[in-house]
């Protein structure tokens, strides 16, 4: 009975939010630009909910409290990394926006292809981008599955319910595009804020006296939980700083973040203002950490993947079904809405940078329809790979999160007046990704304490430098030519 109540509330939340999105975005003339980047018309508020939406995915709902539960202080990295992302966005976002508008770019791969004048580089960036996004979408799918199982008190075991939610949101992004996603993000954030405040403030106050008493209790029971280990030890300070750096730069490199928070802006000031608002938004993650710590004190003993369910288990045990339903509903939205932004980014990469290589005229004539169909193709691909090979995907996940940052050299070097050749950017990308795949294969998350993502990034910059030098030695005439300009 209580599982019915909870699941009904979850369904109502999802359907309600999507219906709201449809209502707001009814009469819009659709074009590829409207679909993918909202016609470059978003002010700071829509940018903020789109971007901060990134900070509030199912990872914030399950993964971060799970880390606080299982590891303690290493989970704190979500605070500085999001801040770093905003600083990077503040400094470089407007530079990217300016060039993207001038060259009429809608995707990350468009940007690489037109800046470095190579469709092949665009293709490479698109293939990598889709691969990363598909992996990231499958993480959200796992999140939805966990939340539905929780809300069903264990009665939901198959993937049907998750599949329905997933394809519902796909249809939604299919018809409304990024503008719809932005408006639904607004609803999602209100609900997620409520859920997180409940988990991070109400639960500790009710069971432990106050959020502050929580830390006193933690010090008694888990004395080393509130500080990092030193130096190069696993999850030590070196790991912490390198992880913050790698993930922070992701704000400038993840294809859906670039489309959603940079290309869609109406002007450069909106991007900078957005970067100043989002840190306040990020503070909500402090409550996520408190929720994870409370769960550790109230329900110790969860192991392995179950730690992800930390505070939701507390809610399931101690609160009525409707509370659990509301929490799980908010959590599902936290997974679905970013998912839809990723579907859109992956679909547009597929349409504009892969299909268009083979037939540019077809891709231009059928622009909007082609992107929509691509969204369906890519989402189905993500779903099928999730349903069939979940175990393998989990081990590939680090390749995706660290891999997305490997677009950084190509983006930073695009600001220079003398740009390296496409070949060097492409080689750097391929070499660093091969390095990441190798580290994933031998299960090596750190190189002498440093997050492999940062090691790969340094390797990437090195390769770009070497290949550029080698190429300029081979064509001295061309370089002399450019130096004159």
């Amino acid at each position, binding site marked *: 009975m209580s599982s019915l109540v909870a699941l009904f509330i979850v369904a109502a939340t999802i359907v309600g939010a999507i219906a709201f999105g449809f209502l707001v975005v009814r009469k819009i003339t659709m074009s590829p630009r409207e679909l993918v980047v909202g016609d470059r018309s978003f002010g700071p508020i829509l940018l903020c909910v789109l971007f901060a939406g990134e900070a509030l995915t199912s990872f914030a709902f399950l993964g971060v409290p799970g880390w606080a539960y299982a590891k303690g202080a290493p989970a704190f990295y979500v605070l500085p990394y999001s801040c770093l992302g905003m600083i990077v966005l503040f400094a470089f976002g407007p530079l990217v926006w300016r060039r993207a508008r001038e060259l009429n770019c809608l995707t990350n791969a468009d940007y690489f292809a037109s800046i470095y004048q190579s469709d092949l580089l665009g293709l490479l960036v698109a293939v990598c981008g889709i691969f990363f996004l598909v992996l990231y979408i499958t993480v959200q799918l796992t999140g939805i599955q966990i939340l539905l199982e929780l809300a069903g008190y264990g009665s939901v075991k198959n993937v049907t319910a998750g599949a329905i939610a997933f394809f519902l949101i796909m249809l939604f992004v299919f018809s409304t595009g990024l503008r719809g996603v932005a408006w639904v993000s607004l609803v999602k954030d209100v609900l997620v804020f409520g859920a997180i405040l409940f988990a991070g403030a109400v639960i500790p106050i009710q069971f432990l006296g*106050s959020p502050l008493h929580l830390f006193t209790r933690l010090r008694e029971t888990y004395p080393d939980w509130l500080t990092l280990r030193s130096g190069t030890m696993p999850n030590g300070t070196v790991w*912490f700083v390198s992880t913050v750096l790698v993930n922070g730069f992701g704000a400038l490199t993840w294809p859906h973040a670039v489309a959603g928070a940079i290309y869609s802006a109406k002007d450069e000031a909106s991007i900078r203002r957005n970067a*100043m608002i989002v840190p306040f938004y990020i503070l909500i993650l402090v409550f996520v950490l408190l929720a994870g710590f409370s769960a550790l004190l109230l329900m110790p003993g969860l192991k392995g993947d179950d730690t992800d369910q930390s505070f939701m288990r507390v809610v399931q045990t101690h609160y009525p079904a409707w509370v659990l339903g509301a929490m799980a509903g908010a959590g599902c939205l936290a997974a679905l809405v970013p998912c839809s932004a990723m579907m859109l980014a992956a679909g547009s990469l597929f349409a504009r940078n892969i299909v268009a290589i083979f037939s540019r005229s077809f891709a231009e004539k059928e622009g909007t329809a082609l992107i929509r169909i691509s969204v369906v193709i890519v989402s189905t691909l993500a779903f099928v790979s999730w349903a069939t090979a979940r175990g393998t995907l989990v081990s590939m996940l680090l390749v995706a999160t660290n891999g997305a940052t490997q677009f950084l050299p190509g983006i930073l070097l695009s600001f220079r007046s003398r*740009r390296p050749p496409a070949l060097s950017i492409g080689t750097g990308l391929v070499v660093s990704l091969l390095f990441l795949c190798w580290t994933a294969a031998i299960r090596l998350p750190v190189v002498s304490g440093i997050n492999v993502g940062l090691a790969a990034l340094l390797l990437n910059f090195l390769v770009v430098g070497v290949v550029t030098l080698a190429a300029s030695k081979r064509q001295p005439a061309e370089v002399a030519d450019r130096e004159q300009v």
Partner: protein
Amino acid sequence: MNSNSPLSSGKKLSFASYILAGIPFIANSFGVCLANRDQPVVFGFPFLLSYLIFWVCVTPIFLWLAERSARK
């Protein structure tokens, strides 16, 4: 090739604004190594966590100052 296009209407960050944006960047990344302590406790929060929360709160102020010192 032409980085100063006719469309670039926005502000350009000055040297001072890069310094101002760089301060929270360093504090949020490398600075963490110096703040990795539990004591002193600030409002009940462990020192490391309060350090991080502090920098989340002041980062916008630094960015605002950086924006102000950008030249038109």
